[in-house]
């Protein structure tokens, strides 16, 4: 069960162009599963920003000196993320979590490829550990626009059989996109599952590649969220259900982790005409 926790910042480290914030989180670590996220309040009741911001849980520690803590990776680019990037040790921070459906893990010890784009790598390290526990081979691919936007290379190397790195500008690893190298990594590792977190365009491309190779993909999507807990309906995208029917599903509670082949990527941001309950007349 998720909780609301008024915590404090234990640490805020700048790594590359990101800020890794460690916050006290009481019992959240006990409830945590890889792929969960937290919703963070931006300031107190004096703040004019009333909506929480969602961040993948990067690490948890359930019995440190501060009791339970969670780590998030923040990429500052707007008022909320800028605010968080400027938080200092002992500043108050209010978290709701753990939220969202976690990654689903394979029953059998099959090889898995983990693909992280920029800060999208954040949720993949706890996932890698969980997969390792199930004796799954893990191969990592990390991509970003340029080297300072890569996150977690050392950990990725430690937790994987192979690590492949790509950057758009070639400032580190191979020049290009993660999907340029994905097919080869899948083949070499004999992967049965691809897990991916990053920009929507990347997720779309990754799930295409997985489908081409006839393997499953789990994609962690990023939709604008007002509540993060399933009550507001702002975070939807068209996803095909077991019954073959497309529904507008809430990425905060039905996701953020979806099977890549079930998401109608090219139609995200629209309501496909064959969607369950799609508008005929008088929509508003």
């Amino acid at each position, binding site marked *: *069960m*998720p*909780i*609301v926790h008024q915590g404090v910042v234990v640490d805020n480290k700048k790594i590359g162009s990101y800020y890794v914030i460690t916050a006290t989180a009481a019992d959240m670590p006990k409830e945590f599963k890889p792929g969960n996220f937290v919703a963070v*309040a931006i300031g107190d*009741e004096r703040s*004019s*920003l*009333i*909506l*929480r911001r969602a961040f993948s849980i990067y690490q948890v520690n359930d019995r440190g000196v501060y009791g339970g803590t969670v780590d998030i990776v923040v990429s500052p680019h707007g008022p909320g993320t800028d605010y968080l990037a400027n938080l200092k040790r002992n500043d108050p921070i209010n978290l*709701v979590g753990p939220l969202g459906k976690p990654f689903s893990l394979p029953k059998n010890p099959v090889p898995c490829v983990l693909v992280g784009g920029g800060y999208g790598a954040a949720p993949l390290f706890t996932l890698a550990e969980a997969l390792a526990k199930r004796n799954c081979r893990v191969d990592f691919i990390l991509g970003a626009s340029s080297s300072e936007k890569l996150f977690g290379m050392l950990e990725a190397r430690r937790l994987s059989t192979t690590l492949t790195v790509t950057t758009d500008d070639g400032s580190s690893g191979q020049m290009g996109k993660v999907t340029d190298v994905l097919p080869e990594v899948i083949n070499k590792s004999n992967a049965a599952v691809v897990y991916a977190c990053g920009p929507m365009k990347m997720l779309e491309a990754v799930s295409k590649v997985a489908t081409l190779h006839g393997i499953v993909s789990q994609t962690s999507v990023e*939709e*604008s969220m*007002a*509540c*993060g*807990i*399933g*009550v*507001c*309906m*702002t*975070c*939807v*995208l068209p996803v095909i259900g077991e019954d073959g029917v497309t*529904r*507008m599903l809430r990425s905060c*509670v039905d996701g953020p982790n979806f099977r890549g082949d079930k998401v109608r990527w090219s139609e*995200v*941001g*629209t*309501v496909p005409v064959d*969607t*369950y*309950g*799609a*508008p005929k*007349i*008088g*929509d*508003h």
Partner: protein
Amino acid sequence: MKRFPKRSSIDMSIDFMNQKLPSPIFTASGCAAAGKELDQFIDITSIGAVVTKSVMLQPRSGRATPRMAETPSGMLNGIGLQGPGIDDFIEKDLAWLNQKGAKTIVSIAGNSVEEYGKIAEKLRDISGVIGIEVNISCPNVENRGLVFACDPNSATEVIHSVKRNSSSSVPIFAKLSPDVTDIAHIAKAVVNAGADGLSVINTLLGMVIDTKTLRPKLSGKTGGLSGPAIRPVAVRCVYQIRQALPKVPIIGMGGIRTGNDALEFFAAGANAISVGTMVFNDPEACVRIHDEVCELLNEKSFRSINDVINAAHKEQI
């Protein structure tokens, strides 16, 4: 660990039509789905009532994203009434609420006067429903898409049709839009049409332009403005309606964040309040606000919530 209301000597219970409710604090339609998700954070039977997301006759996908934009001390939303349709709603959502023992106010919405009536019909004699909130802030497809709530005649017709088709034992609340020249006038019209009470207010029509694209940010272009930003407008509407209709039960809402905010609404004339947008900021808000109101009444050495309702209309001593 769910948050439960603190023990308090203050009597927060209200006589809501024919029902005794433990608290005057409700959820707001569209800000609590059908209670299930919130029940992880608070015990939904500990609050006054769960007001469910407006349900329509048919299932609805709602609008394309982006469906929201953040605004100063508020937000803009254009969900497009995504929902399962009344049959599924009764079968699944309402069943869950009843099994929990929650007090439910079902919010309904329609594209035509007839559709409102049909939904009301379906809710006849369904247990657990302590009230129907009629969301008339919908475009009337039979009247150039003019919003029912903005035209006294269409609003009247809708309330008539709901009243005719629902069981007389279930009170009908008409939910009013602030986007009108004279909200007291609309209030009188719907009460004359048979509304047992009023929900005040729905969102204000607004727009946010995405300055990256220089186009409206929401897929529906305009959306509904909510949150603390609109509170002064909501308090004014409640006050004006209470002036015009001294006795009608009012559920007040609009930007309520704290117990102090809630007190403004009670003093202005609200008999109960709904907490909407701020639930997104604090999933425990309904219970926290209940506790904060108790503390404030204690400080002011009042005994019961009824001591402050309508206080702003009494002559200054």
